[in-house]
Structure formats: structure tokens, C-alpha cells
């Protein structure tokens, strides 16, 4: 049955030297091509708009391939936390698994059930992926750069694709757009489970927009600007990341980001145990893959947002020259930023394989009865601090956070109905069949 040639290729691919050698060769080839073509695109690098377009293309490619790697990482982490190995068959250490997955998705039969609302059914996955991808436009990947061939007095170029005035408001807007994909998929599938998944997603994302917004407002009050690059620059200038000013706000944003990305423990819209597959029950092949990609892209976007808002973006302590706009400083910044994002994604994944899913009433209680009050109280406290002009004072902010935390924890510890409570005081339902 097994073809000896296939067998030989398989064993060859499982040698680390072959994989890493091929990777290095491809990298070398791409670098050589880019170097050869350099005179062609050199003028493009010197002006902001074409440079933004290049950043867009590069980052898009990077993120889309990063999602493939993310899926491998997710499965590896899942395996490791459960004392397994995870995928380790395709290529050395399973490194070619993303390739195999992609190929599988492309070659699978793309089924459109007869009972679906066809236009919406086709639109939904595209919307889900597109809305997630839109968010990348404003991530300040590596600060600013002035190329060596540019005149020394020229304004440095921004590595953001679009430096919008409205900054992270835009991210909030397009971030919540992705729920349209999910809701439409649920509706168009004409399937009770899918519909229920879509409804859950709608209710969940509406609820978690609020704490997310409140957490972001705190950052807005501290920094006084909506533009992400300026927020990062402020943190880099003082060396005090916003996480040290407002850990509670970070916590709010972290939890809401998990919920917005439909990640465990908030993955109710696609709860396999309850809803078959949730909103993507009826989807197969590439359309299913688009939902999948959308979820991971959303995860990367929210991680990048949190890194910019709370973890100083590209800033690293103890590295001199980061405030420069030379190209090597830009590379260092980019690596720093991506490393932080990767750490966040690892945290997301670890959380997914640690926590059981919330029940829906718990989910709502977490949002409306704990996160929103915390957010409002924190916002009020920050507003007072800002009024007094102390918004950059670490000790004042920390004290406010700590005080809030103590008050909240005391009340939560005394609470009769904690998040973990059972659903025991619901009115009794008459389950006898009606005549």
C-alpha cells in the first residue's frame, strides 16, 4: 500500500537538517531577490504612502503565515499540557503540519447545503476574516524609520500602515465588526445549533465591548491621545509601561479581548459539546478555514493592541538607541514587538487549555456584575487622578488600583453568588408535557 518513494520523502522531511536547510535556503533566496531588485523599489521606500503599502503587504503576509504557525503552536501546547507530543509526524517536530493543514483545507469538498441563505452564507466567512484583518492597519509595529539614503532632515517614515487620528477607536469599531461574520453565519446556515451559536456570539460581544471600552478609556485618560504610536512613544519616553499604572485596566482589557476573540473560556459560540460546531457547523473546506483564520488573526490583533497600550509596544528596558530612527533600531523594535505579541498569544493558548468554559449565565454575570462595575469605578478614579494632574504618577495610580482591588475582592469574597455559583435559584419550570 505504501509507496516507497512517498515513504522516502517522508523520512527525509523528518530530518531536522532538511527542514532547517530548506528554510534557510528559501530565506536566502528571498533576501537575494530583494537585494537584486533593490534599485527598483528604492524610491518607493522613501515616501510615506508607498512605504505604508509595502508595510501592509509585508505584515499581511507575515500575519497570515503566523496564523498557520499559531495553529501548530496551539496544538503543540494542547499536547504538552495534556502530556502528549502534539503533531509530530509531518516534517521534523511536526513543523510542516501547517502546510499539510492548508493543503487539506484547499482540497476538501466545499459543501453548500441546500437549505442555506446562499448570499449571506458566502458573505459570512469573508466578513469574519476581513474584519479581523482590518485591525492591523493601525498597529505601530516598529515606531519610525529614516532610511540611510533619505536626506537627514527628512521626516522619518511611520511603520504604521495608517496613522489614524481616531487611533484605537478604529480598532474597537472594526474589532466588533467581526461579530457580523459570526452572526450572519449562524443566521444563514438555517440550522438551530449554528443560529444559537451566532446569537451567543452577539450577546457575548455586546456585553464585553463595555469592559473593553472602559479599560481603553482609562488608557486614553492617562495618555491623552488615541493614537497608538504616541501612546507607545510616551511609555518608551518614561520607561513606565501602562501596565504598571493600571494593572486592573489591563486585566479588564485582557478578559474582554479573550471574550471578543471567542477564545476559551469564552468560546460559547462554538461550544462543541453543546452546539455541534456552533456558528460554523455548516461550513467546510476553505470557508471553514476562513473562520479559523479570522479567529487567530483576531487573537493576534488584540495581542498587538494590548502590547501597544499596556506593554510599551516596541520598548525594551536597557536597550540604548531605541529612540533613534535608524533602520537597525527599527528591526530591533519590530523583533521586540513581535516577541511580546508572541508571548501574549502563548498566554491565550495556555489559558485555553487550562480553563473550563463558562456557562452562559456565568459569562453574563462576569461581564455585567463584575467587569463593568470595576471598569466604571476605575474610570472614575482615573478621571479624578487626571483632574488632579497625577495621571502619570505611578504610586497614585497603583494606590487607586490597589484600593479598588481590595474593595472589590472583599465584596466578592463575601458575595452570596460568586461567578462559580450554581444555577440553583432559578424559578422552577414545569416540564410536564402539555396536553
Amino acid at each position, binding site marked *: 500500500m505504501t509507496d516507497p518513494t512517498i515513504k522516502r520523502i517522508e523520512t527525509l522531511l523528518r530530518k531536522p537538517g532538511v527542514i532547517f536547510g530548506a528554510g534557510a535556503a528559501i530565506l536566502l533566496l528571498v533576501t537575494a531577490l530583494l537585494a537584486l531588485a533593490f534599485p527598483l523599489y528604492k524610491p518607493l521606500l522613501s515616501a510615506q504612502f508607498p512605504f505604508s503599502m509595502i508595510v501592509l503587504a509585508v505584515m499581511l503576509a507575515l500575519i497570515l503565515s503566523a496564523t498557520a504557525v499559531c495553529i501548530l503552536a496551539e496544538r503543540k501546547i494542547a499536547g*504538552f499540557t495534556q502530556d502528549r507530543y502534539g503533531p509530530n509526524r509531518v516534517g521534523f517536530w511536526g513543523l510542516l503540519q501547517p502546510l499539510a493543514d492548508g493543503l487539506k483545507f484547499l482540497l476538501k469538498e466545499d459543501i453548500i447545503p441546500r437549505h442555506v441563505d446562499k448570499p449571506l452564507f458566502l458573505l459570512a466567512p469573508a466578513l469574519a476574516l476581513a474584519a479581523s484583518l482590518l485591525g492591523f492597519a493601525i498597529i505601530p509595529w516598529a515606531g519610525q524609520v529614516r532610511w540611510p539614503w533619505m536626506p537627514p532632515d527628512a521626516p522619518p517614515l511611520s511603520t504604521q500602515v495608517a496613522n489614524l487620528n481616531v487611533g484605537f477607536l478604529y480598532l474597537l469599531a472594526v474589532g466588533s465588526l467581526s461579530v457580523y461574520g459570526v452572526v450572519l453565519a449562524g443566521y444563514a446556515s438555517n440550522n438551530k445549533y449554528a443560529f444559537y451559536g451566532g446569537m451567543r456570539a452577539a450577546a457575548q460581544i455586546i456585553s464585553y465591548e463595555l469592559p473593553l471600552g472602559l479599560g481603553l478609556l482609562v488608557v486614553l485618560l492617562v495618555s491623552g491621545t488615541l493614537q497608538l504610536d504616541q501612546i507607545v512613544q510616551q511609555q518608551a519616553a518614561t520607561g513606565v509601561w501602562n501596565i504598571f499604572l493600571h494593572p486592573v485596566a489591563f486585566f479588564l482589557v485582557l478578559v474582554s479581548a479573550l471574550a471578543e476573540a471567542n477564545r476559551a473560556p469564552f468560546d460559547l459560540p462554538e461550544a462543541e459539546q453543546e452546539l455541534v460546531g456552533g456558528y460554523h457547523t455548516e461550513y467546510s473546506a476553505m470557508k471553514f478555514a476562513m473562520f479559523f483564520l479570522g479567529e487567530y488573526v483576531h487573537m493576534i490583533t488584540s495581542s498587538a493592541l494590548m502590547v501597544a497600550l499596556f506593554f510599551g509596544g516596541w520598548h525594551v528596558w536597557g536597550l540604548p538607541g531605541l529612540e533613534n530612527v535608524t533602520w537597525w533600531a527599527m528591526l530591533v523594535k519590530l523583533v521586540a514587538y513581535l516577541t511580546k505579541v508572541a508571548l501574549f498569544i502563548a498566554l491565550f493558548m*495556555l*489559558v485555553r487549555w487550562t480553563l473550563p468554559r463558562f456557562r452562559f449565565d456565568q459569562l453574563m454575570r462576569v461581564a455585567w456584575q463584575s467587569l463593568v462595575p470595576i471598569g466604571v469605578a476605575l474610570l472614575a478614579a482615573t478621571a479624578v487622578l487626571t483632574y488632579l494632574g497625577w495621571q502619570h504618577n505611578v504610586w497614585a495610580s497603583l494606590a487607586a488600583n490597589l484600593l479598588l482591588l481590595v474593595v472589590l475582592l472583599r465584596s466578592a469574597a463575601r458575595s452570596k453568588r460568586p*461567578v462559580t455559583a450554581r444555577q440553583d435559584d432559578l424559578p422552577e419550570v414545569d416540564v410536564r408535557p402539555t396536553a
Partner: protein
Amino acid sequence: MRDDDIIVLKEPELTAAERLYLPQILDGLKTTLRHMFDLQRRRAVVHQYPEQKREDTGELRTANYHGVHRLNKDPDGRVACVACFMCSTACPAHCIHIEAGESPWPDREKYPVKFDIDELRCIYCGMCEEACPVDAIELTPLYELVSCTREELILDKEKLLQVYEETKAVKPRKNPPVTDYGLTGRQSLDVAQPNVERKV
């Protein structure tokens, strides 16, 4: 049972940490992280399947594993089945199809002309093995059941007898002369199993 036999258990009160939920999350993360970096445990627990098989390490319990079926042969090399239909009656998945014919041997009335088992329908519960009065049908430790078509996995009598030849080394037939047909029937012992030496 009286009322005071009923023990009412109260749910334990949640501690403050449990009610806060957050410390529990950190606890959980600690557990998963510990497992993530526990290489030794992973190596000890995981079998890398196609290369490492449990039957090679002796961890597969061959005596009672519920794998592919086999039809046993009696000491004379004849099919042991007497086509009584007990297994196909007991089968909850209706995967056994038997056609009986008049036995060419004098020690039994019937024998299976056809004996087909649909291995894809079978749920490997072992009821057929329990039901068989002559221990003719048994489940083997073979679990690698692969084919390119569904038809290939409907095993007929020849294949089932071949499975017996393949597996009798790992799992000898339970009690070869389980029932001596002759003792309860009209034939004498010598007719029933002429080649077997008898203890009186």
C-alpha cells in the same frame, strides 16, 4: 429502605479563594505549565504508535482484547462453528450473517456454509463470544483494521478462519473441546473427535 437511610450530603462551602475565582485560575495555569515542561512524564506516557506498539511492550492485554473476530477450528482442522445462530441473535449491531447447511460430518447436524461479519458495523462488544455454545467465534487482539473499500471489511468464513491461523499463537483457543458434541448428541465420542486422545 427507610427514610433515615438517605444521607443528605451538603455541598462544601466555597472558600474565599474559590469564590474569588482568580486565585483558582492562577492555580490552574500553574498545573498546565507544570505538565507542559514535564518531559519525562510525556516520554513515559506516550506511545509513538506506528513505531511503538503495545503488543511489543507487552502492555496489550491479548487475553481479553476486543479486536477483529476469528472462527476457531477444532483439533481436526474443521470449522468449529455449528451454525446455531446464537451469535447473530445476540449481536446488538446485526453484523453477523450466517447461512447454515447440512454438516458433512457425522458428529454435528449443521455447519456454516457462509459466515460473514461486517467489521464496520460491529461494535466489538463481545456478545457473540459470550453466546457461542462451542466457543467457535472469538475476538482477537488484532486492531489494525484497514481497507480501501467497505466491502473488504465484510469478512467471510475463509478470512475469519485465516484470522484464527494468524492469531492462535498469541491467543490460543480457550478450551478446545469445550463441548463434546457426542456426549449430548447421538454420536459416540470416537465419532465426534476421532483423532483426540481421551482421558477416561
